[in-house]
């Protein structure tokens, strides 16, 4: 590859008769530059997915390898008739939906507050951004133990001190507790995107609205929210893709319980695959996850593609 690249300098000054040769050489150079990245991604995308599809149509349990065989749609029909699977689907939608709403609303509030100038604003922004860089297992353990522990947790102490009933979060409100942890990690991301978007808002637009006598509420709904709409769409789509695969937060806190209360789609696939070693069933479940993610991905890719068509707005 290096040799073909080195030759490039000479061809630039090549005579007319060599133009065609130079052109094809140029094409090979271009291909050599991009082919490695495209190649590995192509393999990364196709091989595992093809294998998942293959296993989804086979009966295969690692513990009983001798029972391997073609199963047709059996894995799917078992899954679709399994109330646990639909329970997990429902839990996934609740988890994704609730986390989206909380992060977007809090993200907008934080962005609006931290957009205006005040002394120490950059420090405040850094503080508010920090949770996004905390690894999920740390976030989950800190919240679960030191903040939400029913006896020794700080929240329990605060609730008790102000005379409210103490909550055993992970027993009584497991899903709420997990949504709180996820929201804490992802609100900073939403905030940052909204801050970026607010900064691109033309000042004249705001001034004109003020001069027209708009109050703060009108200002928010008529000017700011429409301006943020594209950013909100982007945040919702990107976060959905990440939230669909939320795993570590559940794994380190509830382990899917109590009962099935926090068993989401990713978690049920994990239990099927690595606790029951039922590769066929887990693969069928995995395909559902792929389909769900792709529904979101299609819209996200469209948005990105639209931005690529308007180069002046993009970058």
């Amino acid at each position: 590859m290096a040799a073909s690249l080195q030759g490039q300098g000479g061809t630039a000054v090549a005579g007319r008769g060599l133009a065609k040769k130079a052109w094809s050489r140029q094409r090979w150079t271009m291909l050599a530059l991009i082919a490695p990245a495209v190649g590995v991604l192509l393999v990364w995308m196709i091989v595992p997915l093809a294998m998942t599809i293959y296993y989804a149509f086979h009966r295969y349990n690692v513990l009983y390898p001798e029972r391997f065989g073609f199963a047709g749609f059996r894995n799917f029909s078992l899954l679709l008739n399994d109330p646990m699977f639909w329970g997990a689907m429902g839990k996934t939608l609740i988890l994704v939906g609730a986390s989206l709403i909380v992060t977007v609303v809090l993200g907008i509030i934080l962005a609006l507050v931290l957009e205006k100038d005040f002394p120490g604003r950059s420090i405040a922004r850094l503080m508010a951004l920090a949770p996004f860089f905390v690894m999920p297992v740390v976030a989950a353990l800190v919240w679960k133990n030191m903040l939400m522990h029913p006896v020794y947790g700080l929240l329990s102490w605060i609730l008790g001190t102000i005379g409210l009933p103490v909550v055993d979060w992970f027993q009584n409100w497991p899903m709420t507790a997990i949504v709180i942890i996820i929201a804490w990690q992802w609100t900073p991301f939403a905030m940052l995107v909204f801050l970026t978007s607010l900064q691109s808002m033309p000042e004249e637009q705001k001034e004109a609205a003020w001069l027209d006598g708009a109050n703060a509420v009108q200002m928010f709904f008529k000017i700011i929210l429409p301006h943020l709409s594209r950013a909100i769409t982007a945040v919702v789509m990107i976060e959905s893709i990440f939230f669909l695969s939320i795993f570590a937060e559940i794994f380190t806190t509830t382990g899917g319980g109590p009962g099935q209360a926090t068993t989401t789609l990713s978690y049920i696939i994990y239990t099927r695959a690595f606790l029951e070693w039922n590769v066929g069933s887990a693969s069928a479940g995995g395909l559902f996850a792929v389909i769900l993610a792709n529904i979101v991905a299609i819209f996200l890719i469209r948005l990105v593609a639209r931005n690529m068509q308007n180069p002046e707005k993009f970058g």
Partner: protein
Amino acid sequence: MKRSHLGHAVLGHGLAFLMFFPILWMIITAFKTEIDAFSMPPILFFEPTLSSLNEVFARGSYSKFVTNSIIAALGSTLLCLLFAIPAAYQMSFFPSKRTNGTLLWMISTKMMPAVGVIIPIYLIFQAAGLLDHIMGLVLIFFLMNLPLAVWMLYTYFKEIPNEILEAARVDGAGIVEELRFILLPAAIPGIASTALLCTILAWNESFWSLQLTASNAAPLTVFIASFKAAEGMFWAKMSGASMLAIGPIVLLGWAMQRHLVRGLTFGAVK
């Protein structure tokens, strides 16, 4: 006017403090004794001690987890740059009619949910001897971050005027010289922030590392997850280990906050 300014500052710092508080509480707990960590009501003023941090270091395996995290994060990031820089260079300076499509396709590979492909990857790794092998993690993190790296570098390279490169070409520079002596120096800030983002994402990744490693190749995420079993027993030690694990990454993240949106939203927001 002044008054509302003050009110706004208080509100801003108050909200930011609330967001930061769990991290702060963790840092405080890291300097408590295990008994102080459990005291009820919680205590704010105490004799700070390094005993729990010392204990974390004393566990012989701790340095192994750190080393694994560093190898996985830096190794995958290096591979990412190695593959992404030439591709991004080609796409930003010699775009063809397929370039946009290729970029979009690359981004779309990032949207494959890990649970959808975990089983084949596990089986392949098992067959290839990559289970619980640090090179397995390097490989996965590399593939996971590659689309993002290509995309980010592409947007940075786009900002470099083509004329600079053309001038070099006229002077007879080959592609390798062009990349090394013209493009790389001009793009250092962009390459640095791409590398930082890849490092952060690889460092914090917790799905693949929990599934694919056990003892030999386990990075810090797996080490910290192991505290879940000892629930409620070692809060000070857990906080100490967590503080050491997230400290460097939070600092790196702060350093690159301006570039984060570009990398994570694929230009959907501007």
